[in-house]
């Protein structure tokens, strides 16, 4: 908790609050306003990007809880997302359930799948665990192509109708944006609550020192499993939203590559903080957008280079950036920001 000098909590509730100064309130309100008005401020491009960022954010938040907070490296987040998408999709397509039901159930289906790897996490640690979770990806793809066609469509995938609330269909970019925004806000709020409540502390305890945690009464087995359960739940919700956004679900959409990027977002943003997940997701996604936007520009300007060269070079840039980033700021952007803030701070001061 970093506060400007002179701010003191009068009650424990205040001490616990996330937003504490009028300025912070102002910034927060402005941020919310921009998010709410985005479709009117910058219709089109920004909305599409923001929608995908919102969905990605939910998945990355889940990964933050599993990996950043509870310390269990997970490289199967994209597969968990896929499970959520398929579960929600199948319920919507075959049983015509409302998205209010299918999205949470998608989350829970993913959570159950993820918890299996949580069970493994009790015994398997470090790199071994990270690599074990890669198996989730292969098992997911295999299962989706093998389970009965009546369930998940096998290679055909699932084609979905838009999410509907009463007679209101989320069938335009702006509408689905608000749906995703609502879920992203809810999931972010929930992650924040989780983080500062008993569960979040137990996660960090397990991450920082699982032996000590066990000895002071934290059931490490339960919390490792729970960390995967919750992280995968987030992925499942993200997957279900993705399903409603794209309205088509296929195993091809959820690749190992995507999981790798999610881990990358965490690293860039910073491990272990909700803000880190947000910052990392936004920064990397925008960077990727930038590259897809800048690429054609360069190709236009220097046609002799050819698109192939430009885009491949962009990959070098992106990979190089990550490397440089990890070398110079292995704890992420949020950490750097905190250090900068720290130097302005006069807290803690003797009362």
């Amino acid at each position, binding site marked *: 908790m970093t506060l400007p000098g002179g701010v003191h909590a009068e009650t424990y509730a205040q001490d616990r609050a996330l937003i504490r100064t009028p300025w912070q309130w102002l910034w927060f309100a402005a941020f919310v306003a921009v998010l709410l008005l985005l479709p009117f401020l910058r219709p089109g491009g920004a909305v599409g990007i923001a929608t995908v960022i919102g969905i990605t954010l939910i998945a990355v938040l889940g990964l933050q809880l599993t*990996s950043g907070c509870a310390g269990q*490296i997970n490289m199967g987040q994209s597969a968990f997302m896929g499970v959520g998408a398929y579960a929600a999709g199948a319920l919507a397509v075959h049983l015509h359930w409302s998205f209010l039901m299918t999205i949470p159930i998608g989350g829970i289906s993913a959570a159950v799948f993820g918890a299996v790897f949580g069970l*493994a996490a009790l*015994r*398997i*640690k*470090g*790199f*071994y665990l*990270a*690599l*074990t979770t*890669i*198996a989730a990806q*292969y*098992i997911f*793809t*295999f299962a989706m*192509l*093998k389970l009965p066609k009546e369930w998940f469509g096998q290679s055909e995938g699932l084609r979905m109708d838009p999410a509907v609330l009463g007679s209101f269909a989320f069938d335009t970019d702006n509408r689905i944006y608000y749906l995703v925004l609502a879920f992203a806000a809810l999931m972010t709020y929930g992650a924040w609550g989780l983080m500062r409540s008993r569960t979040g502390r137990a996660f960090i305890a397990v991450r920082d020192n699982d*032996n*000590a945690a066990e*000895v002071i009464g934290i059931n490490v087995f339960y919390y490792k499993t729970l960390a995967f359960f919750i992280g995968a739940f987030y992925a499942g919700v993200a997957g279900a939203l993705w399903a409603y956004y794209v309205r088509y679900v296929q195993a091809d959409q959820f690749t*190992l590559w995507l999981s*790798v990027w999610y*881990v*990358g977002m*965490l*690293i860039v943003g910073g*491990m272990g903080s909700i803000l880190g997940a947000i910052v990392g997701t936004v920064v990397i996604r925008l960077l990727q957008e930038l590259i897809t936007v800048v690429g054609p520009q360069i190709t236009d300007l220097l046609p002799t280079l050819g698109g*192939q*060269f430009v885009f*491949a*070079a*962009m*990959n*070098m*840039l*992106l*990979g*190089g*950036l*990550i*490397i440089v*980033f*990890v*070398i110079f700021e*292995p704890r992420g952007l949020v950490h750097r920001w905190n250090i900068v803030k720290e130097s302005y701070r006069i807290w803690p001061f003797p009362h």
Partner: protein
Amino acid sequence: MTSLLSQVANGALTGLLYALVAMSFVIIYRSARVFNFAQGEIVVVGAFLVWTLMSAFDLPVWAAVPLALLASVLLGVLIERVILRSLVGEELFAFVMVTIGLLIFIRGVVLVAWGPEVRFFPAVLPMAAVKVGALVFDRAMVIGGALTLVVAAAMSWFFNRTQLGLEMTAVAEDHQTALSLGIPVTRSIAVAWGISGLLSTVAAIIFLNGKGMTFLASDIGFAALPVALLAGLESIGGVVLGGLIVGIALGLASYFLDPIFNGGVAAVFPFVIMVIVLLIRPTGLFGWKTIERI
């Protein structure tokens, strides 16, 4: 029956080849405690080096292969010096991410330097059939399998018998103790990256011998993952056994399970075995166990 035998035998051979790639993971891991996600890309770079020297520069095998091997050793050392060295003492995550960044970066380099087109990898090893009874093997594969055994034996000998190898094993055990004995830890790690680069190129030669190839050949890296993990990330000899186990299990699985699942078991089965083995032995079959203390 012949079909079963053939699948198992060829599976075992394939497993041995995976073991070669797995070995290049293991050699880095045991000395530097880093799992190099970019290993598959290094294999591709090795492959393109050979291809360039042989197909583009028309060098003969005896010149091209040693040159390519040398270059891949240098590549390994370079990566260690430039990137990994500056991360000493950082957390596990940093290493996961930096090698992933490396993966993306090298892929970009490969695309820029060699492009995405399909290339024909030269037949460095003789291509012919080897017949054993009713079984037919690819001679290149058989040579590759034998080569894997030789390389594994050589590596085992190196790490257990030679002074440099012993020192590197000491580094694998405990960086600080190694330091206290006057062993230059960072140099050992650089040597490990060099050896790993070398093995990657050897693997590329055996794998791609006389086949088509694109930058996607890096998939080999992920395919070899279960072998490395199953064996345990510290054991050289174990990797060979791990490769055989995965290969034979794969042969059996595709014979017995493919009809049930309508095929495709080969892609997922190694991972399933890997998870099961790790649940029973969390550091693989031959990996080093650690005692936890508070």
